């Protein structure tokens, strides 16, 4: 609780938390409060400028942009959240294990992780989407895997700071099992660093999912999605800028909100956001 208070007492932290809370609330409540059907096309209302009935205007199929912008983060957030969880869990488990075991196992497994990291994530996504088709079921495991590689480095580096300390040595000397040492001695000490890292992963994944949708590899139409909406309207940008502006504003406000919150939490917890190392 004192951490949350420290976050909210920083202006940037308060703004960030407000933005994220607003977006999450909107994603959860939007089906109930939608002003128009987001999928219904209307040939009479193509590319209308913002008006009282359609405050954000309409797109080139005559769909209400406000309704679509309200719903457009739901699927991206779902995919980003689940793949962040997968990435954090497997990345942390492998990273902590390697830090504790050390020696040859650590060296060899890390070289494999290096090799896997050298394959561009977008390439893997394209291969899997070509094989399995677009949609959350294909994206979540792929993104969870490829973003988890980065977590391995961070978790290992954060844990290395602690495995050399005497309290871990002391637990080893007592003869505790390795899993117990990882969970009880190491994990509580790297928890804060990893929580901040998780928030950063979430923001990268949100952006990543939006980019994939923009490229046609993410969310399948006609589901409303910010990335898709931007891709769809980019041809009419000179004549109907509102069709691009609103999804962009929604996406960037969420990303900025997550980053501001992560920064504020990092400061409140005393963690260096780049390296994941505790500074206080």
């Amino acid at each position: 609780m004192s951490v949350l208070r420290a976050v909210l007492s920083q202006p940037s932290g308060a703004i960030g938390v407000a933005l994220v809370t607003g977006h999450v609330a909107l994603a959860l409540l939007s089906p109930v409060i939608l002003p128009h059907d987001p999928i219904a096309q209307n040939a009479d209302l193509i590319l209308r400028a913002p008006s009282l009935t359609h405050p954000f205007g309409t797109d080139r199929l005559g769909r209400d942009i406000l309704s679509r912008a309200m719903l457009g983060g739901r699927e991206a957030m779902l995919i980003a959240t689940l793949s962040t969880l997968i990435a954090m869990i497997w990345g942390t488990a492998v990273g902590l294990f390697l830090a504790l075991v050390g020696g040859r196992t650590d060296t060899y497994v890390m070289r494999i992780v290096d090799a896997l990291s050298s394959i561009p994530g977008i390439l893997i996504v394209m291969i899997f989407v070509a094989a399995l088709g677009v949609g959350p079921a294909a994206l979540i495991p792929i993104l969870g895997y490829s973003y988890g590689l980065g977590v391995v480095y961070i978790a290992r580096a954060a844990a290395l700071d602690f495995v050399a300390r005497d309290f871990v040595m002391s637990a080893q000397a007592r003869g505790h099992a390795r899993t117990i040492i990882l969970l009880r001695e190491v994990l509580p000490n790297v928890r804060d660093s990893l929580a901040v890292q998780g928030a950063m992963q979430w923001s990268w994944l949100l952006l990543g999912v939006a980019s994939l949708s923009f490229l046609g590899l993410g969310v399948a139409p006609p589901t409303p999605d910010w990335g898709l909406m931007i891709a769809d309207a980019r041809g009419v940008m000179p004549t109907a800028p509102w069709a691009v502006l609103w999804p962009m504003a929604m996406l960037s406000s969420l990303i900025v909100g997550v980053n501001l919150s992560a920064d504020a939490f990092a400061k409140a917890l005393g963690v260096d956001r780049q390296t994941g190392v505790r500074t206080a």
Partner: protein
Amino acid sequence: MKLLDAQDLTICRSGSDSAIVSAASLALGPGETIGIGGESGCGKSTLLLALMGIVKPGLTVTGGRVHISGKDLATISDGTMRGLRGRFVAMVPQSAAMALTPTMRVGAQLAEAMAVHDASPPGDIAAHTTALFEKVRLPEPDRIGKRYPHELSGGQMQRVAIAMALACRPKLLLLDEPTTGLDVTTQAGILDLLGDLRRETGMAMVCVSHDIGVLARLTDRVAVMYAGRIVEERPTATLLTRPAHPYARALLASVPRIEIPGLPPSIPGSPPPPGMSGPGCAFAPRCSRAHAACEQVPTLLPLPDGGRIACHAPDHGPQAPVKGPGPRGAPEAGMPVIAVRNLVVRYRRASFLARITRQRPPDPVVADVSLTLARGEILGLVGESGSGKSTILRAIAGLWPPSAGNITLDGANLPARVTARDRAALRRVQVVFQNPDASLNPRHTVREILAQPLRLYFNANPAEVEARARSLIADVRLDPAHLDRRPAQLSGGERQRVALARAFAAEPDVILCDEVTSALDVSVQASVLSLIHDLCHARGTSCLFVAHDIAVVAALCDRVAVLHQGRIVEQGPARSVCSIPEHPFTRSLIGAVHRIPDVHDNSFRVG
């Protein structure tokens, strides 16, 4: 004119009135040497920095004045201050290893220190650096400047730091713990150097140290600080033999002394945290002579011998050595609990290239060491850093597998690796580490820390854990309220007690203590030593006590093994090894101990 004159200097935390240093006054004439002693957190380093006009961030000078050669530091400009620093007053920082830039050759760093105040051509500067390296007695003074700090030993780095302070020929040298962290024989070399420099140059010195023995070798006068105040300032010889302030007397008594066997008495209680002392005399709660008048803060009053004291109930009698229970004679014969035979430990295997080119393998860290530990015996293992003493302990604990040799527990072979040992064998051998800051998980409460061995070895349920934890915390003389605290909320001594309680929670037959008191203040050390002594005796536990300080070993241990370069050079009953050492290395180890003279010891001289 006084070289240095500090009057009623008070330094508080910014924005509060909690004083880290209270009304400290010190004066120093040319060529004089004064020591500031006291335990960690007493404000001695803060005071020393303030004498140079430096206050750490978060602190503010709220009262008093410092004059250096007649100039008031509070009123002079930054430019004048910079002119004074280096040329008039210079400082040797606490840790030379931290103070030297790791990526710059030491000669260049020294040249830089000179260039600040000296516009000589580069050729002259090079000659000057060589001369300075020679002055601080570094080997190969004309070539050592080409080395980087990590290529030097700890003692050599300290000499470079001293050379940098001497670069602009200051009249006043401030030394912050100049020998802390160095081996005793290296310490002796640095102290000899400082003493000679002082005689040659006539420099005045202010030396801060927690080690009264260091101050005894270097200073004319010593000021003892407690809770931010100077409580007693006396000529060094007088302070050492007839201290009058109850704190100074207790502090000196708690230093283990090799010539008097037995455990030194400790001071009850613990000092208030910096800036948190209550009203009245800060030492009164721990003082046996405290009375009603001690509710008023005593003022620092002059004494007939030129010293000063701040106490309502000083004790001017001579200090009689008081010793607690000490080492026993020869331990009972019989099967040893732990027997180490022909132990060899290497840090690295010879590399593939070295093996095919048949190079000589690297020297082992521990070479052919055999020792036994009898039931209930406390065995001291003493040596300098790098002698392999901690490595032997780790090999017995199974944390560092040996290259050769074997270790038995009650005659049964102990597997080399901790992971290969069964739970019963693990329970019977417990380790206590050097630094309790590192050996206790900062995220756990004391209850959780003590629960670990209880759950692991005895499958204790929560009720049993609670009951055992309470009795253990009482055994190490702590309060049950400590069970809910985390390590950061405990003092250094309390943490080491918790670490001992955790080791004894396993009801071990053997505890392995790795330099367990070297991170502690001397009065806390005395209480931890007596705790180890009492716990081992009450339970019949054997103890392998690794230490670098032979005086500590002499005070606690029944038997001593002296380790030098990975080999045991001498072992025997503590009393005989320390009073009649046979091996030259043991003799040099004992000779390097900074003796505190007795009342009757007239051979002692200052400087």
